[in-house]
């Protein structure tokens, strides 16, 4: 055994429950000084819960947390940060309208006894800190004008300014370009030599093997293994993340037809925020009537952008051509796409789907109002209520009354109401972005059955889900996306979670394809 230094941060048999459900089952986790410790696992494996315990967000867990050998219990994130554990979440927590120095000293301003801020000393100290990590930016620069990568580095500098002993980074490269990511990695290795312990969460295989000293794999709330990175080859890592293969039942009902519903040729979407990065890079595929085509991909894979582009709502300048049932299709916007028979269910039901105060009736009929209104836009209310009633029944949405506001529905039923809105437009192509997100297990099973039924009725479905278990159960075919490209294709019945996960993390397709 290698003689390791004593751990900087140590978590012993940590358990955490939400209500009656235990989500973390006695996990041990150590962070050594001067190491990058990668935390790996599928979505829902317990990574966020673990990070939230370390960073003081969850205070009600059982188990012990010690920092430099001393048991600690934090009252909240600020307390943890004060003790030397800094977390950098995917969403940045800087105040965009303030300057670099103001942000670095936010909440711990240097003030005299009259409460006046000593800006000069703050700026001098900020300049020193920035110089230390080699970040060339003026302390007086307004944060909003800086590129995202620089902002991310600022967060790190802020953590260092608080003398962080442990730095937790949650998918820090998801908003970074390749070059910016390189800068980040260089800074991290500087921190490492200074004895800082770094916890790093990522879905990208190349980053794991580039940075990690140790890898801890979580699965279903338990620690599967902790190994030195060089002792854990990628194939084994993936197997550990997935566990045993689940029995895969292919989609029931007749297979997909051969009639073409949607053809996508050479779709690319450029990112206007980060120069030179493509959100979607030359994607082509065909979707048939009655087919469920799964688009698998981890965060930032571009799968969601494909759906939005098909709905006339591309995130950036798009190129490529679509054909809908053989006819050219170039949607000018959501309204146009809906008219042509393409409906989108976004991944964010709350902010992009439903208005909580609207009644179920009005929420469901919204996209199809033209079908229920006569001259002058007078709504034929009986026809509207009948149609909404029918689709609600077809989707088995349990609601006491159609006139109740949607906020009174459970998550699963809200999702059904949202799906009902799409269905009422009589779509030929249904684009579903994470339809099972945030709904419980029973509602999920219900939704699976529904999607199969809809496909059996001839609707072509393009489905994104990050819950990889779902795909072999639902999809006839699966396209795996990584960094905007199609990295692999499977027939649904042949797919395994490992098979999907490896290319989704960029393993086996390599960086050599990237033109750099």
């Amino acid at each position, binding site marked *: 055994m290698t003689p390791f230094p004593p751990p900087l941060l140590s978590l012993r048999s940590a358990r955490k429950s939400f209500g009656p459900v235990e989500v973390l089952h006695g996990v041990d986790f150590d962070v050594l000084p001067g190491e990058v410790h990668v935390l790996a696992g599928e979505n829902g494996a317990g990574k966020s819960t673990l990070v939230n315990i370390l960073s003081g967000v969850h205070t009600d867990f059982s188990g012990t947390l010690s920092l430099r050998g001393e048991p600690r219990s934090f009252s909240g994130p600020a307390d943890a940060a004060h003790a030397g554990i800094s977390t950098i979440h995917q969403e940045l927590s800087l105040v965009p309208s303030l300057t670099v120095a103001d942000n670095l000293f936010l909440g711990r301003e240097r003030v005299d006894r009259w409460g006046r801020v000593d800006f000069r000393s703050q700026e001098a100290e900020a300049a020193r800190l920035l110089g230390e990590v080699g970040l060339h930016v003026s302390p007086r620069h307004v944060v909003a004008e800086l590129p995202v990568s620089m902002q991310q580095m600022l967060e790190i500098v802020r953590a260092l300014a608080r003398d962080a002993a442990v730095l937790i980074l949650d998918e820090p490269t998801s908003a970074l370009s390749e070059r910016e990511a390189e800068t980040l990695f260089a800074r991290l290795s500087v921190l490492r030599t200074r004895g800082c312990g770094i916890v790093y969460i990522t879905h990208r295989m190349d980053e794991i093997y580039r940075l990690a000293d140790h890898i801890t794999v979580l699965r279903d709330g338990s620690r599967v293994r902790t190994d030195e990175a060089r002792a854990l080859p990628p194939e084994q890592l993936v197997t550990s993340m997935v566990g045993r293969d689940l029995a895969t039942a292919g989609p029931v009902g007749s297979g997909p037809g051969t009639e073409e519903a949607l053809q996508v040729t050479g779709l690319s979407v450029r990112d206007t925020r980060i120069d030179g990065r493509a959100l979607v890079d030359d994607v082509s595929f065909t979707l048939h009537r009655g087919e469920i085509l799964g688009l698998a991909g981890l965060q930032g894979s571009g799968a969601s952008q494909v759906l939005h582009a098909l709905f006339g709502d591309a995130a950036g300048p798009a190129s490529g051509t679509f054909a809908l049932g053989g006819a050219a299709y170039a949607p000018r916007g*959501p309204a146009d796409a809906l008219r042509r028979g393409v409906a989108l269910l976004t991944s964010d039901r709350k902010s*992009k*789907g439903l208005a909580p105060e609207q009644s179920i009736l009005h929420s469901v*009929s919204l996209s199809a*109002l033209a079908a229920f209104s006569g001259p002058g836009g007078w709504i034929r209310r009986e026809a509207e209520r009948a149609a909404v009633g029918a689709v609600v029944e077809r989707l088995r949405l349990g609601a006491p009354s159609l006139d109740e506001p949607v906020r009174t529905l459970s998550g699963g039923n809200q999702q059904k109401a949202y799906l009902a809105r799409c269905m009422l437009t009589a779509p030929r192509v249904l684009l579903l972005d994470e339809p099972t997100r945030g709904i419980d297990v029973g509602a999920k099973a219900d939704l699976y059955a529904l999607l199969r039924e809809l496909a059996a009725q001839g609707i072509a479905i393009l489905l994104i889900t990050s819950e990889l278990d779902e795909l072999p159960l639902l999809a006839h075919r699966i396209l795996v996306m990584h960094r905007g490209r199609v990295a692999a294709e499977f027939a649904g019945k042949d797919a395994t979670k490992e098979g999907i996960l490896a290319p989704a993390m960029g393993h086996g397709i390599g960086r050599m394809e990237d033109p750099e």
Partner: protein
Amino acid sequence: MNRGVSSRLRRFLATPFARALLALLLMVGLGIAFNADGAFFRWSVHRDMLRQVSVYGILACGMTVVIVSAGIDLSVSSVLALSAVTFATLTLPMGWGATTAILAVLAAGAALGSLSGFLVARMRIQPFIVTLAMMVFARGLAKVVSGGKKVTNYVLAPDGSSQVVDLPRVFELIDSRVLGGNLSIVTVVFLACVALTWVVLERLRVGRHIYAVGGNAEAARLSGVPVGRTLVAAYALSGLFAAVAGICQAAQETQGDPETGMGYELDAIAMVVIGGTPLTGGKGSVTLTLVGVLTIGYLQKILSLNAAPEATRLMLTGVIIVCAVLFQRGRK
């Protein structure tokens, strides 16, 4: 059976409409308690109250539509003044017929509203700022149209001599009463505006779109709602009602005063809010606003019947606004 009725009653009492109605009943109760030697029991008092709130109420109808769309329209008072002076100028010195003058003024009001809507929807400027700018602009335009003076039936002839022309019948007509002198025409106009707003919001597609945009604009856009057109329609309606109010105001004052209606936008907003339509959008209705208009109307009337000084009236109105909103939010 009995339980069914009581639970339905309880459900009804939890609705915003029931709460607004309760506040109004409370106000009427106060009127009965402080009836100023029985003055409160005379219909003429109620008729006058209705007449006095009608112009505000007409503005509040348009304001309701805009607030449901999650916006605000500060320009209604200035558009009212502009409409009043335009109407007076067209009918008095220029001698237009009443119908053409009314149509022209209504069209102008709707056009100014559409411009506000366009700036909000297409230029993506905050409604507060757009309509603040429109408020200042329309007031200025009103002064241009009127030459900075009140437009009366005392007109200047081309040769420089001045003469008094007859007030066109339309002025008198609008300021008269129907139903045996028991209801003012302006009140009838106000109620017609309420009805029109109700139809737009509750029965027409554009109304649904206004609620959808106010509730969640991004979701509405992704559901195929023409967000821009919907917002333009909402502000256009508000401009149209401001023009209606302006014509009524001119008729009641028998002149076009470029300074008229100062601060009315705030009264209109207060009436909408007291009714229970939240400023956050996506919720509320014009029936709530009708109740809000009556609540404020009675408050003012009761205070004036009991000879409360203006200072007291203003302070009490402020207190009532806060209480009404707290009451509306109530036990959630």
